[in-house]
C-alpha cells in the first residue's frame, strides 16, 4: 500500500483531516499555557531573597555556602539530544509514509531513546538541585524553575509514552502508510515539546 492510498477526499468543512486540525489546535493552546509559565519565570527572575541562585554563589546568614546551581554542559547535551530526536522522528515519519518498516522502527526507537535520556537528565538535575539545597519552596527561583521545567518534563514523558505505543504498533505491523497520520500527530506533539525547549534553554539557563 502506498502513501497515496489515503488520498481520498475527506468530507470535512475544511477538507482537512479533523485529527490533524485537532492536534494543531491543541498545540496552539499549549503555546499559551507555556507562555504563562515562561512569564511566571521571567517576572520572578532575580527577585529571590535567599539562595541558592542559578548563576551566582551565595552564603547564608548562618555561614552556609551555596555554589551556582546550573550545570550548563549537561543541559546542553540534553538540548542537543532533544533536537536530534526531532530529526529522528521526521525520518521515522518519512519511513512510515513510504512503507519502509525498518526505517520507521529504527528511527522511532532512536527518538524514544533520546526522549528517555532527556527525561533522565531532568530527573538527575532535579535530584542534584535538591541535594544542593534548592527545593520547590526554597525561593522564587526554585518555585518558578521547577514549575516551568517540570511541566515541560511531563510533556516529554507523555511524548515518550505516546511514541512507545506507536513503536509497539510498528513492531506488530499495525502502522502501515495508510495509518501514518497516527505517527504524524505524535510527531507534531514531539516537535512542539522540542520548540518549547528551544525557548526555555536560553531563557532559563543562558540568560543571566
Amino acid at each position, binding site marked *: 500500500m502506498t502513501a497515496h492510498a489515503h488520498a481520498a477526499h475527506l468530507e470535512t468543512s475544511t477538507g482537512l483531516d479533523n485529527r490533524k486540525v485537532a492536534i494543531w489546535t491543541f*498545540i496552539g493552546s499549549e503555546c499559551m499555557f507555556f507562555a504563562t509559565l515562561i512569564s511566571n519565570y521571567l517576572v520572578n527572575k532575580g527577585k529571590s531573597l535567599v539562595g541558592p541562585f542559578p548563576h551566582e554563589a551565595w552564603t547564608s546568614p548562618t555561614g552556609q555556602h551555596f555554589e551556582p546551581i546550573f550545570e550548563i554542559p549537561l543541559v546542553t547535551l540534553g538540548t542537543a539530544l532533544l533536537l536530534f530526536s526531532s530529526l529522528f522522528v521526521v525520518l521515522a515519519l518519512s519511513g512510515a509514509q513510504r512503507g519502509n518498516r525498518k526505517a520507521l522502527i529504527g528511527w522511532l526507537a532512536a527518538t524514544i531513546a533520546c526522549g528517555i535520556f532527556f527525561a533522565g537528565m531532568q530527573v538527575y538535575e532535579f535530584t542534584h538541585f535538591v541535594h544542593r539545597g534548592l527545593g520547590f519552596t526554597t525561593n522564587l527561583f526554585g518555585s518558578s524553575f521547577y514549575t516551568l521545567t517540570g511541566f515541560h518534563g511531563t510533556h516529554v514523558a507523555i511524548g515518550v509514552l505516546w511514541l512507545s505505543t506507536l513503536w509497539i504498533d510498528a513492531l506488530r505491523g499495525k502502522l502501515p502508510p495508510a495509518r501514518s497520520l497516527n505517527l504524524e500527530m505524535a510527531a507534531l506533539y514531539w516537535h512542539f515539546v522540542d520548540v518549547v525547549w528551544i525557548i526555555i534553554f536560553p531563557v532559563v539557563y543562558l540568560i543571566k
Partner: protein
Amino acid sequence: MDSHVTTGTQEHTHPTASLYFKVGLVLFVLTALEVGLYEITYGDHAGSMASTLKPLFVPLLLLLSAAKFALVAMFYMHLKQDSKLFTGVFVFPLIIAAFIIVALIILQAYHFAFARSG
C-alpha cells in the same frame, strides 16, 4: 527520496531526508553558537570580548532561538508545505503568547518601578 503524503484534499510533498539532515545540522550549529556565545560572554572562557558582547548577548540569543524555532516549525512540522490553516492555528496563539509574556514583564517592571518610587 521524496515522500508524497496527503492531508485531506490537499496533496503535499514533504521535504527529502537529506533536507531533514541539513536542517538538523543547522539546528546543531545554532545550539553550539548559543552555548559558545554564553561561554565567551559569561562562562569560564570569557575574555576581552565579554564586555563588548554583554549588551548584545540577550538579543543575539533570542535571534538564534527564533531561527531554531522557525526551522523546526517550517521543515519538521511541515508548516511550509501543509495547509495555511495549520499555520494560522499555530501562529495566532503564538502571537497571543508573545503578547502575554511582554505584557507581564512590562507590568511587573512598572509595578516595581512604581513601588520603589514610592
